């Protein structure tokens, strides 16, 4: 069978290796031209609505090679740079060179991003946040690391006791600990809001109840996001909702996910009763019942 193939070969048995080497050389030399010609043909076919099949990317160079071969036969010229059809890049057929140029432009954009160019605008925009913490030097970029300013959310006098309690979290809080946490909660809320809840006729509500604080041992029960100023009727609503939740458990411990889900159910009910300094309170609701 090998003999039959050798007989059919145009260059003979002895020169098969030379023929293969020549063939690969032709493919390499024609590759770039074939791809360019193929892309050009593909773009023309697309514009003209002709049916040109190229399901794989490698089909484009093959089509171009066939076109070059046919052209060389009709003109009698050898394939080469002088006979390749001129390629005009279009959006439909970007050349590798055009793609590389585009990538280089993207890299340049990454090296010189807009946020760096306009960072001076961010400094102006963020300056008021430094004022909020009453840290005037920081607002002008003159912060003193040796003497950190005491902001609205810094509570150094309460941290020690808080830390002592947090170390013991992971088990149910004792009444003494809950009592202390509630005192700290009132102080924190007052410090963060600049006015005590009492002065606003409100109470401080723990969104995640202290009763189940041990289920989230890494969370500070008195984190500001867990404290809500509520008018007393709002606390009544919260108490009823949590009481129902507690009864539904039948004495079992809830999972942290259950507590969070219940919190998300309760919070919208409390919104009408939330007290926030600087915001007007909603008008009181009509009473239930009449005179005593």
């Amino acid at each position, binding site marked *: 069978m090998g003999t039959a193939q050798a007989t059919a070969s145009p260059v003979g048995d002895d020169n098969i290796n030379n023929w293969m080497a020549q063939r690969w050389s032709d493919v390499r030399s024609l590759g770039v031209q074939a791809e360019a010609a193929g892309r050009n043909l593909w773009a023309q076919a697309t514009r003209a609505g002709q049916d040109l099949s190229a399901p794989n990317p490698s089909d484009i160079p093959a089509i171009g090679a066939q076109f070059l071969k046919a052209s060389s036969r009709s003109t009698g010229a050898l394939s080469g740079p002088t006979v390749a059809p001129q390629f005009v890049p279009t959006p439909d057929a970007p050349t590798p060179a055009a793609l590389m140029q585009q990538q280089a432009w993207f890299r340049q954009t990454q090296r010189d991003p807009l946020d760096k160019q306009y960072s001076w605008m961010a400094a102006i925009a963020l300056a008021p946040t430094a004022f909020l913490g009453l840290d005037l030097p920081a607002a002008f970029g003159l912060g003193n690391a040796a003497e950190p300013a005491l902001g609205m959310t810094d509570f150094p006098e309460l941290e020690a*006791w808080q830390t002592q309690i947090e170390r013991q979290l992971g088990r149910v809080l*004792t009444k*003494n600990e809950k009592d*202390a946490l*509630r005192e700290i909660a009132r102080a924190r809320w007052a410090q963060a809001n600049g006015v005590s809840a009492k002065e606003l006729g409100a109470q401080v509500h723990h969104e995640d109840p202290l*009763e189940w604080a041990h289920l989230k041992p890494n969370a500070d029960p008195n984190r500001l996001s867990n404290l809500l100023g*509520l008018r007393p009727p709002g606390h009544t609503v919260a108490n009823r909702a949590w009481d129902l939740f*507690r009864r539904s458990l039948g004495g079992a411990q809830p999972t942290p996910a259950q507590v969070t889900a219940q919190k998300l159910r309760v919070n919208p009910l409390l919104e009408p009763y939330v007290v926030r300094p600087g915001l007007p309170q909603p008008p009181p609701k009509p009473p239930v019942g009449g005179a005593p």
Partner: protein
Amino acid sequence: MTISVPEVARILEGRGALGRRRKNQTAWVIDFVTGLIERPIPADLADFYRENIEWVGDFQTAIPVWNDHVSRVTDDAAVDRLMAAKAIPLFWDGCGSLYGVDVSTDTDHPAVYFFDHEDGWEKPAYAAGSSIGSFLLLLAEHDAAIDEKRPPGWELKIDPDLGNCPRAPPIWLAD
């Protein structure tokens, strides 16, 4: 020995630890609560209402308000919240729980207990004062005691009878 409510109120007011309400509705409040428990209120509780206290330290009183202009109760102050536990609220703790005076027994100097809203108000969590007078003194010291990290039982120096309250133990023995 029981310290009287008027005397304690005078002491605390002198310290600046007690504020009084602008409007005095003592007679109406006493009638209202008497109707609620269907018998005369304890003498200490009547004295407490007569002192017309609005706050002690950071704690707000839980006293109902009658509004003459609209002829109705505009703030019931959760006065019936502890009826199931046979108690009448005196103060909010600032986080939704209540200090209430015991009305389960017929005495003029009942004890005061803390009712935790997370426990459902059904029973006292711990004893907060062997009488209303002693309780007011302890309440005025409450936040300072926590900030100063006083050891458990510091309350006994002010209220030696705190451990003898019949319905619940003091806070350091409550768990």
